[in-house]
């Protein structure tokens, strides 16, 4: 089985982001960037399948500026075999990401696409579902467990109120939720090895994809700040406030 894992370079999840003073966007100057955490889970899952001999090749793909090569190297250090960088300086929105991935899939014929359910920058949660629609493939979104039996997959999904299990045939798109696995740290020897692994570089133009800005950012603002409240010494006083003043209990 060949697995494609799309990964995205995003602001590290530990960074407290700041909004630019002109409200044009979030300030990304000199901010630590990392692989989107949900994508790390996707890479890890692919590597585990390879370790179980259920997969023989893992291709990591990213779309973004030349710096996104770092994110591909991270995927290669965790265990992907080769990388594809679709290089562009433009902002690429989910539908166009899905269209680029569709072209890559046509060329590489993976049996499975494993990808994060959402990126922690724009929080869209769209690309996997869009890609499966474009390909007319089944989708197993928000997966917390994945079982492969030959050409069939059982996907356990995190849904509101509990879990749901779907059966689907490959080829399929799986998007990862947090509890699917705990990604490993790449070891130093593997980081060194990753530097030798092949990365193919192309552009959206090579794939005949025109990047459209369907969604226009008009303004980015900090959410209204909540005023810190008061400290209370006794439970009795708290209950009195909630009951008599706020009337919420």
């Amino acid at each position, binding site marked *: 089985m060949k697995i494609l894992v799309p990964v995205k370079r995003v602001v590290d999840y530990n960074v407290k*982001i700041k*909004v630019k003073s002109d409200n044009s966007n*979030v300030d990304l100057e000199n901010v630590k960037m990392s692989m989107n955490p949900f994508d790390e889970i996707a890479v890890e899952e692919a590597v585990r399948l390879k370790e179980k001999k259920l997969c023989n090749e893992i291709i990591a793909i990213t779309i973004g500026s030349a710096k996104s090569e770092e994110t591909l190297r991270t995927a290669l250090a965790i265990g992907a075999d080769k990388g594809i960088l679709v290089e562009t300086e433009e902002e690429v*929105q*989910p*539908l166009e990401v899905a269209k680029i991935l569709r072209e890559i899939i046509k060329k590489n014929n993976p049996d499975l696409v494993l990808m994060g359910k959402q990126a*922690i920058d*724009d*929080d*869209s949660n*769209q690309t*996997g*579902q*869009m*890609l*499966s*629609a474009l390909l*007319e493939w*089944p*989708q*197993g*979104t*928000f997966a*917390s467990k994945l079982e492969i039996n030959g050409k069939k997959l059982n996907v356990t999904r*995190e*849904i*509101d*109120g*509990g*879990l*749901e*299990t*779907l059966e*689907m045939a490959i080829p399929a798109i799986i998007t990862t*939720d*947090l*509890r699917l696995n705990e990604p490993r740290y790449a070891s130093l020897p593997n980081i060194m090895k990753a530097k030798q692994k092949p990365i193919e570089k192309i552009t959206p133009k090579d794939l005949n994809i025109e990047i459209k*800005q*369907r*969604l*226009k*950012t*008009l*303004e*980015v*603002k*900090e*959410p209204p700040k*909540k005023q*810190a*409240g*008061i*400290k209370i010494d*006794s*439970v009795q006083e*708290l*209950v009195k406030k909630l009951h008599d003043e*706020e009337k*919420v*209990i």
Partner: protein
Amino acid sequence: MSVLVLIEHDNQSLKLSSLNTITAAKKIDKSVHAIILGENCSKVAEELSKCQDIEEIFISENNIYKNHIAENIAPTIVELANKYSHILAPSSTFGKNIMPRIAALLDVAQISDIISVENNDTFIRPIYAGNANLKVQSKDSKKIITVRTTNFEASKLDGGNTKITKIENKKDAGLSKFLKNELNKSDRPELTSAGIIISGGRGMESGKNFNLLEEVADKLKAAVGASRAAVDAGFVPNDYQVGQTGKVVAPELYIAVGISGAIQHLAGMKDSKIIVAINKDEEAPIFQVADYGIVGDLFKILPELSKELDKIKS
């Protein structure tokens, strides 16, 4: 053109999220239609027909829609789409799963998780786990939208007798098959619709200690939630989780117990009307968003709180 709302339900009754979504739709256009796809779900249509904000209800009942399989629902909605300028669903796991599939089939962008309608092409949505709000304009002819339900009041079911029209079924796309679900049963209210929520964090120290929270919850008719740290530690199942990676809630009263207040948790509860924090660490970030804070040992405070609640009831 009218706005279409894809109704979330469990074949028996409406989910409250649908009524919040109807309110968001109403802010876009005064003509709002609803579509119900399910199996033996005529009760849902009857319930919705009491909603005065809806002009017309469409229903299609078929086994292929029973478990809300995205691959079956999306083509049905796409077929109806030419009559509508906007199609909305709640940004629950139901809407998140289906709507991008519809958007891609229509070759338009989706605007996810809106918290405000500015006008019919401009919306506000949170990005970076709620640390920034993006005002975004869609240039596509049709807008596919998911709605953060906590930011819109629920539309009322107070009379009205909306017309219900049956529509034809589609074929099974045959891509995904439902095997089973494991839903967590509880007599307490659901997190996303509860008026009061009491949540525990890593400070609870064990799953067993959640009994202390449950005792208070039962007295307040509250839902019980948890931080991601408590879920990761295995104290409670994942569907208790409030936060960026769990549920987004905005009850009248949110009581955070033994929760430090990581950004990812705050993203899920900071819009609650009154926030109470109980934590032994007075530097915990949760106190920065709390209206009322008590610094102290939760294992002493929770039993006391339970006793005080008995007093106000008697």
